[in-house]
């Protein structure tokens, strides 16, 4: 079943279309990654899905219900970690999570244990009495998450939850997202970090200029979009003529020389990397090292948009 379905979804500001006719399906139980550069429209899309932004055109169904009619029922079952920290800085971590728990209708012992669970989950239980104002950046990020999961939502939106967090805290956040997902929460995750998305997402949607330009599993995206192979070859006695000669071989689409190292891109429909290497060896060229690069989401993004994700 699809937990989110949008159809021709548009968000237009006066002179700017931030989200442009997006058809998106997110399946129940998956971790879905939204990838895109600054200003691609990720947060705007999520804003419409959680009901804080008015939809200009198109329709949104969340948890099988129409957001324009059943928003209160939907909201009970979703959690939202906003891109910007959003809690009461003057309150302690504990009081904050209590506050958000209450807004979701939790009370009494149930509320208390849910709050404890959320704080333990995010590793803040020991610091629960401290005013959140004095937390480090990473702790604030974790509190931002704790406030969104206290009511155990079926569907969790996380808008760049790890910005400005050190690698160790980031790993623990990623780990907890896996755990949440394992316990049945569907997660929508936006990020600039390829590695994060590759580490936790089952499927990925790539956005650019308000459009959803590709959707699929990482493998699908890679095999469907990346038609070329990438390799670096280190050669002894490298010469300018040699580099030029290789560049002229049919199928080689790119060849950049950096002292003894060649950065090569080939079109396997004409010649695969293996065939190229065989050819070089047969010409008795002294190859020192070879590195065939596995294409990643970064490569996918580069291929689709012609730019790096983080410029």
């Amino acid at each position, binding site marked *: 079943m699809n937990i989110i379905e949008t159809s021709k979804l548009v968000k237009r500001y006066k002179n700017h279309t931030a989200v442009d006719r997006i058809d998106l399906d997110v399946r129940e139980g998956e971790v879905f990654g939204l990838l895109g550069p600054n200003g691609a429209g990720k947060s705007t899309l999520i*804003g419409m899905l*959680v*009901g*804080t*932004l*008015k939809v200009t055109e198109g329709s949104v169904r969340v948890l099988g219900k129409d957001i324009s009619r059943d928003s*209160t029922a939907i*909201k*009970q079952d*979703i959690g*939202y970690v*906003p891109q*910007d*920290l*959003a*809690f*009461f*800085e*003057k309150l302690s971590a504990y009081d904050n999570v209590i*506050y*958000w728990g*209450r*807004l*979701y*209708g939790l009370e009494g012992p149930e509320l208390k244990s849910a709050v404890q669970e959320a704080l333990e989950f995010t590793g803040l239980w020991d610091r629960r009495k401290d005013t959140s104002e004095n937390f480090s950046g990473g702790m604030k990020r974790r509190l931002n998450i704790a*406030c969104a999961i206290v009511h155990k939502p079926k569907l969790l939106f996380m808008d760049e939850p790890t910005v400005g967090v050190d690698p160790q805290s980031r790993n623990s956040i990623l780990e907890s997202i896996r755990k949440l997902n394992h316990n049945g929460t569907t997660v929508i995750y936006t990020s600039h970090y390829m590695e994060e998305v590759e580490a936790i997402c089952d499927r990925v949607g790539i956005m650019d200029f308000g459009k959803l330009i590709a959707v699929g599993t990482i493998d699908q995206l890679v095999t469907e979009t990346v038609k070329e192979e990438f390799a670096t070859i280190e050669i002894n006695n490298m010469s300018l003529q040699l580099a030029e000669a290789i560049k002229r071989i049919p199928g080689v689409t790119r060849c950049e020389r950096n002292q003894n190292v060649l950065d090569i891109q080939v079109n396997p429909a004409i010649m695969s990397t293996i065939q190229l290497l065989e050819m070089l060896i047969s010409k008795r060229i002294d190859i020192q090292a070879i590195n065939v690069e596995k294409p990643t989401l970064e490569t996918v993004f580069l291929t689709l948009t012609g730019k790096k994700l983080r410029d």
Partner: protein
Amino acid sequence: MTVLLNNLKRIFLKPINIVLMIVVPIVLNLMFISIFNAEQMYEVGIIDLDDSKLTASIIEEMKIAANTHEYENDDAVINSALINSTINMAIRFPENYAEDMINGKCPKVEIYAVEENTDSVPLTMLVAAIGTNCGEIGKLCDGDEDKFYDCVEDYLEGTFQTEYNNFDLSKGEQIERAVNSLGYLAMGMMFLMSFATTLLLEDKMSRVYSRILTTPTTRASYLLQHLLSYVIVAAVQVVLIISLLPVIMDGQLSFGDSFGVTLQVMLVTLIFATACIAIGLTVSRFSKNNVVAGAFIGLVNLPVLMLGGCMWPRDLMPEGLQRVGDFVPTTWFLKAAEEVLYENGLGAAWKELALLGGLAAILITVSFLVETDDKC
């Protein structure tokens, strides 16, 4: 109720808020009323032809309520002083005033005042009363000078002080003063308006507002709880100030002689406060940040206070401005308060109260129902 309780906590746990809400309006009131009181000192011209121990005592006692000025016995000088309002009144003690008094002859002082000017009436009556009473003492003492002075000293001691307090204000003046005082209170209420702005905008700035709207708490519920929390704060403010102020003013100010009237004054003030809060809430609901809201409130605040007669009586303004003033809530508030203070009941103020309530209702409906992006 989560939003409501949290708001109350945020308001009452900040000492500065208590100061703004309770202390500032009271201090403002004290300041303005003491200015009024300074004006209430009488300027009295004295022509003492007797120059006796008795007249000296009476003049000495009068100084509690009046500034006395010695004059020669020259009608022309006194007349011009009265006409120029250098003095409110003049008193002439005739020759042998004390001696006649001791001998039980009840001599009369002569009092000069401008006829249309009623300012001096209370003091005139008091001086006349003192004359009569001294005469009575004289009759009883039967010519015994020492005994007479003993009795008179005792009698004069504090006469002016108590009498002055007792009858210096007529009912009308008292109500006028209470209405003035409510005008200053209205300034305090306008502070509330900025308050309503502050917390809501704080929520917007910290992104808490848009986050709350992703929970089952609807915008209407959130705004209603904000509104309620300020109405509660306003109720505390109104009850405290209206019951404390007369006590602090030591009887010089009264919001109604009976508990019922005072209660009605509180109610009228609270309705006005609700209208103010609705304005603040609407402004902050639709503005993106503090600067916009602050500018707007500042722009609205001052003219509304001025046009509504909170800073000076409306009658002092030109006719045109008064008509414009008919459209500001402060005017409705003070008119309603006046009706209630004259013990005409809430019914007599229905039009003003309906206007205040209607304004609040319209603003609240608009800010609850109009759809906008809730992200800033």
